[in-house]
């Protein structure tokens, strides 16, 4: 049995300034994800599916907090899988029991994981080509083999959320140059081609300049979040060239306000937002709950598989 369908907003220890997420558990990665509030106190939602997000900002700007909020949402979605890469281990480590793969400070493992993802991506494209389709969707229309009625069923494969904290660790710090370049090339391929088959890359780094990640990779991220930056140049590197001239600089954000930043998403132009924050206890509780939810879902799927009549 799945947990309650709608969040109970009755008074309790948890106080949230935001309305509850709809339509309740389990969540869907195809729905907009709440990330925080804008400067007018209105809830900010971004749609992750078929998108990639680059998070930048100085240390302590709230990059990992935003990453945790997005990963927490994805963890509570049963229609997506999680891949986590974290050089520091602890930022995303709490979600490892919800994830299909978790890689710590090991570039060899990271490389192997991205290689497998690339192969999976190619296989998915081959499937879509054969099915005369162009992208993964939440539900597809088909005809029931039992009743013959037209029904909506989940797509043949699920989206993957690939969250990478401190991308610079893999692309510019550890390993030899060949490993780092291979990592960057693989990641660029996933970001460039993975959207349609549901590979959502969310990458965080302090300053995504060309010596940290290749410009060709950075420019592929359509959506950007810039936490406080130390100067206007860094802000433009995260958000894209030209925004400082138009008056949008993440350098203007107070260093005493972590989580505040400029987000380029649905509207196409930056908006000042404050991302939600999940403390360690809340993260751990959500992660434990999400892990249970996913285990229960897997068990239910296995039960359903056993109930299916054997193929003739």
């Amino acid at each position: 049995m799945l947990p309650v369908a709608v969040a109970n907003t009755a008074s309790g220890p948890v106080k949230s300034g935001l309305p509850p997420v709809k339509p309740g558990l389990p969540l869907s990665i195809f729905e907009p994800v709440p990330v925080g509030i804008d400067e007018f106190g209105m809830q900010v939602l971004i749609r992750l599916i078929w998108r990639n997000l680059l998070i930048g900002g100085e240390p302590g700007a709230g990059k990992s907090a935003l990453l945790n909020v997005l990963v927490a949402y994805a963890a509570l979605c049963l229609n997506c899988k999680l891949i986590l890469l974290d050089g520091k281990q602890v930022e995303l480590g709490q979600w490892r029991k919800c994830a299909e793969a978790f890689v710590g400070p090991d570039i060899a493992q990271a490389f192997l994981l991205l290689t497998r993802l690339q192969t999976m991506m190619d296989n998915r494209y081959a499937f879509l080509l054969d099915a005369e389709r162009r992208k993964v969707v939440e539900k597809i229309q088909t005809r029931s083999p039992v009743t013959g009625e037209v029904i909506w069923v989940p797509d043949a494969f699920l989206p993957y959320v690939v969250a990478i904290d401190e991308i610079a660790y893999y692309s510019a710090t550890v390993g030899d140059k060949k490993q780092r370049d291979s990592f960057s090339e693989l990641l660029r391929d996933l970001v460039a081609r993975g959207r349609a088959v549901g590979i959502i890359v969310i990458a965080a780094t302090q300053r995504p300049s060309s010596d940290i990640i290749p410009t060709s990779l950075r420019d592929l991220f359509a959506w950007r979040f810039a936490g406080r930056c130390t100067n206007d140049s860094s802000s433009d590197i995260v958000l894209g060239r030209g925004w400082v001239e138009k008056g949008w600089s993440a350098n203007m954000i107070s260093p005493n306000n972590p989580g505040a930043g400029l987000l380029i998403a649905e509207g196409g132009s930056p908006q000042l937002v404050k991302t939600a924050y999940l403390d360690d206890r809340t993260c751990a509780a959500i992660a434990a709950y999400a892990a249970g939810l996913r285990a229960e879902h897997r068990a239910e799927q296995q039960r359903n598989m056993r109930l299916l009549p054997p193929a003739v």
Partner: protein
Amino acid sequence: MARRKLFAAAPVGAVAVVEPPVSQWYARRAGVAAVVAGLVADALLTAALSVFCPLLLAVVLGALAGVLAAVVTAVLVRVWPVLRVLWWWSVEITVAVAVAGGWVTVAHLSAWWIASVVSLAVSLAVLVPRRSRRFVWAWLWCLVVRHRLRVCFATLVRSQARAAGGRPVVLPLLLWARPTLAGERVWLWLRAGLSLEDLEGKAGLIAVACIAKQVRIAAGSERYAALVRVDVSRRDPLSGRIDSPLALFIPSLRDDNEADVPVSPAVPLVGLELADIEDPASEPSRRGGRG
């Protein structure tokens, strides 16, 4: 000419509800509108009645209807500025009438002091609890902001009105206003002669008019350029911590303070200090890093 004296013959000391140039413009417009409405009504009704009755009777009835339509149209157009002012203050007028009407009704049914006590009790019940007081205060600010925006826009586009040869200022239509955590959000429908670009450089002036710290003006719709969103900001909602709504889903977080997570890690407390770490063996090669 009698029409034009509707507002011109004001007694000494009277407050001008509508400015004289605007009043004259509406008077001219009322005349034109009356003639057009009268002729159209006359022609249409005459044509329709000619099917059912003799032509002469149809002409006479059509002429009467035309005169009636012309008078109604002239009066409506002529007093439109007054109707508009009444519409602008409709919420305040409604509230005032409801409060006064309620007091008078209760006073008639019982006594005046009972009505006063009831009014006081209702006022205290609304204004003393913090939540309801903030609710009322926030919506009051919405009313104030609508009036301030109207005054501000009237000032901003007055110069355009002069350039247009005495034509009255076509103010943006103020649609819905609602409170936000930072202040208020107002939706406007721009009329011909104004665009979002005209307003973008005036955000500072609008903020001053709205007694606010900052105002942001943005397009309110991808479909209509006329729909504009004005966000009035008087507080900074970004200063505090924002909790994620996801936590509300988790029973252990929702119901009590006990988190169902281990408090003591299973990892032994060894090697957590620098003194516990031995010097590494000599590097086998300069290639490769920690990976």
